[in-house]
């Protein structure tokens, strides 16, 4: 996907003023937050499972190389063709190479966020291949030429009317308005492609080292189709998806589906181990897995490492007050919300995503719901520290903070400055005790709010006076 994170502020402002998007976001927030909370109550030992899941993910990161080798040995024994690829561009090249070798013309795709990172669809189409997204949300945005605005519900920003218009135009049919009817029309349109596609491309939610399997978590059935119907199946996956055992996956899945959509379980959990077996009547003749670095080993070596625990549930963004109000597009890349604020600068460069770690209140609504306990606000703060170290902050801000620290470290100077400030502020606030406009530097506050005025005297001066009064005794 093209990186537009530098436009964060501008896009965010536009999104705040977009009534249709605001309605869609409000609708999504209401549903996702409530259903997650309700489903978590089904687990009487939620925090225990959560802690264990974080530990499994850490074990996976700490032993990633040996686990991947264990996975590979078993995958290859089952007939899987395994490729290792270092960069996003090479992922695309490898997929195209496999497609060419198999005379592939039509490809069906089940969701892959890694594929978004590498711009896979765009490259496949440029290579003359016919690529169909099959996840309904991804299909919708593919048709409308947009990028996903959420990692689980990519078309969450679109209203039913948007989809109705889109389908009427693209399917060349009568415009429908009923959501079920629209969904079933998409089913009808995509069904023939499932049946005659040459190649299926999927992501992988997890790799299971114990069995050499890849697994995907889906609800629609497109994942099963993509991994079963075509004669070639290619799964692309980041190195960090490796999990030790089937038991570990089963445990983490209890949290993944609840954290993502409030479901106790997702409709389909599909574990694939190798291509069609000799006696199978269905399945692809060849199964390829492309293991991808694309910046992950660099993050693993950095102090952003815990972000690699992420199991892509989307709970952090669903609970983030910033994301809840601006949606995903402002973040400018594949992953929005809190996890996006950490992964985007880590993968595309700190200087290309300066706003992301700063556009947060550090409220930790995200960290509290993260099923693998990623310390999201702490990582955002660390990125802010790196920005300061690299001189990426505006000079006014850097000078202001140092002046504040200088003054506040000197109680007498601070006392004088605050006494003056309190008096000026009180005067400026007038009878109502409100400032309607703050000077430059503070105008971001007063465009939308008043600023309550100080009361005119500082606590320290009043307290000192009170103490002096006490010492000198009653008059």
């Amino acid at each position, binding site marked *: 996907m093209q990186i537009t994170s530098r436009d964060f502020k501008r896009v965010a402002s536009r999104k705040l003023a977009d009534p249709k998007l605001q309605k869609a976001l409000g609708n999504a927030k209401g549903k996702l937050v409530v259903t997650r909370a309700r489903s978590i109550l089904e687990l009487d030992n939620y925090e225990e499972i959560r802690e264990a899941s974080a530990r499994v993910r850490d074990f996976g990161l700490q032993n990633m190389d040996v686990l991947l080798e264990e996975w590979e040995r078993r995958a290859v024994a089952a007939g899987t063709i395994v490729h290792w690829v270092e960069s996003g561009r090479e992922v695309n090249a490898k997929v195209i190479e496999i497609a060419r070798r198999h005379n592939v013309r039509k490809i069906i795709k089940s969701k892959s966020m890694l594929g978004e990172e590498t711009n896979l669809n765009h490259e496949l189409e440029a290579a003359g291949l016919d690529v169909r997204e099959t996840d309904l949300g991804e299909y919708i945005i593919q048709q409308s030429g947009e990028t996903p605005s959420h990692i689980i519900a990519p078309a969450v920003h679109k209203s039913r009317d948007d989809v109705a218009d889109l389908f009427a135009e693209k399917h060349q049919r009568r415009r429908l308005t009923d959501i079920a009817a629209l969904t079933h029309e998409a089913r009808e349109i995509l069904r023939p492609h499932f049946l005659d596609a040459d190649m299926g491309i999927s992501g992988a939610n997890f790799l299971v080292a114990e069995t050499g399997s890849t697994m995907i978590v889906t609800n629609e059935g497109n994942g099963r189709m993509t991994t079963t119907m075509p004669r070639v199946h290619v799964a692309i996956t980041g190195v960090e998806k490796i999990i030790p055992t089937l038991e570990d996956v089963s445990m983490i899945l209890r949290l993944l589906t609840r954290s993502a959509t409030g479901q106790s379980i997702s409709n389909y959990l599909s574990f694939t181990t190798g291509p069609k077996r000799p006696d199978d009547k269905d399945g692809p003749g060849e199964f390829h897995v492309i293991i991808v670095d694309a910046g992950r080993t660099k993050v693993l070596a950095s102090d952003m490492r815990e972000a690699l625990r992420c199991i892509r549930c989307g709970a952090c963004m669903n609970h983030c007050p910033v994301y809840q109000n601006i949606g995903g597009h402002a973040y400018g890349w594949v992953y929005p919300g809190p996890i996006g604020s950490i992964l985007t600068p880590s993968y595309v460069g700190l200087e290309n995503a300066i706003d992301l770690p700063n556009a947060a209140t550090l409220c930790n609504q995200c960290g509290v719901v993260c099923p693998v306990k990623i310390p999201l606000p702490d990582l955002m703060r660390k990125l802010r520290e790196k920005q300061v170290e690299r001189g990426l902050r505006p000079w006014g801000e850097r000078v202001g903070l140092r002046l504040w620290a200088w003054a506040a470290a000197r109680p007498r100077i601070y006392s004088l400055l605050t006494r003056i400030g*309190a008096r000026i502020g009180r005067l400026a606030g007038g009878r109502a005790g409100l400032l309607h406009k703050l000077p430059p530097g503070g105008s971001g506050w007063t465009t939308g709010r008043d600023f309550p005025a100080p009361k005119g005297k500082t606590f320290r001066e009043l307290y000192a006076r009170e103490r002096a009064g006490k010492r000198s005794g009653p008059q």
Partner: protein
Amino acid sequence: MKVGLFVTCLVDLMRPNIGFAALRLLEAAGCDVVVPATQTCCGQPGYNSGDRIAAQALARKVVDEFDACEYIVVPSGSCSGMIRAHYPELFAELPEYRARAEAVAARTYELTDFLQNMVRLERVPGKFSGSVTYHDSCSGLREMGVKSQPRALLSKIPGLTIKEMQQPEQCCGFGGTFAVKYGDISSRIADLKCEDVQAAGADALVLGDLGCMLNIEGRLRRRNDNTPVLHVAEVLAGELPQD
């Protein structure tokens, strides 16, 4: 109990009566209170902006001022959180201060948590007749475990009833410098909090943090909403501001 009171920079500059309210409450609780005269700021603005040097300068000063105190009490979830939850990490590269900082952190309490759980205050001096709705500050709630304590203390005031808003734990949008750097997003988040406050229909909004207070009050007033916004200390101590 020997208590050091850290009033916070915002209370000092903007709402001194809250500092006095905290002082009165602690005295009413039988504490022996000192108020280090040179106190200024805990260093959070620098810390959250990524300037560790600036933050450490002020944090060292706080440790020097307060480490003789048996307890450090703060009428703020965010500043007490800064000390307790973040000072140990902030001093990671200053080993000579680290042990002292950890000790200070371990003895730092948010005001209502201290009064309810350490002092077990039975009676509060304040008087209030009417309903209030309570906003949980993010750091108070998620860093300092403040949730039931202010409500329990407020409930000790006869005539005061609590009407919960729909989402008391939802962030108000302040976030320190976030409020000016991303003012439009911040205002929108604040606006949703104000709608929630309005829908609760209480006589006043009560909370435990100045940042939230200024932010929510500022947005309420821009919405022509005159709902009083009060710090829990001033309600409990009966030290409501005289204007």
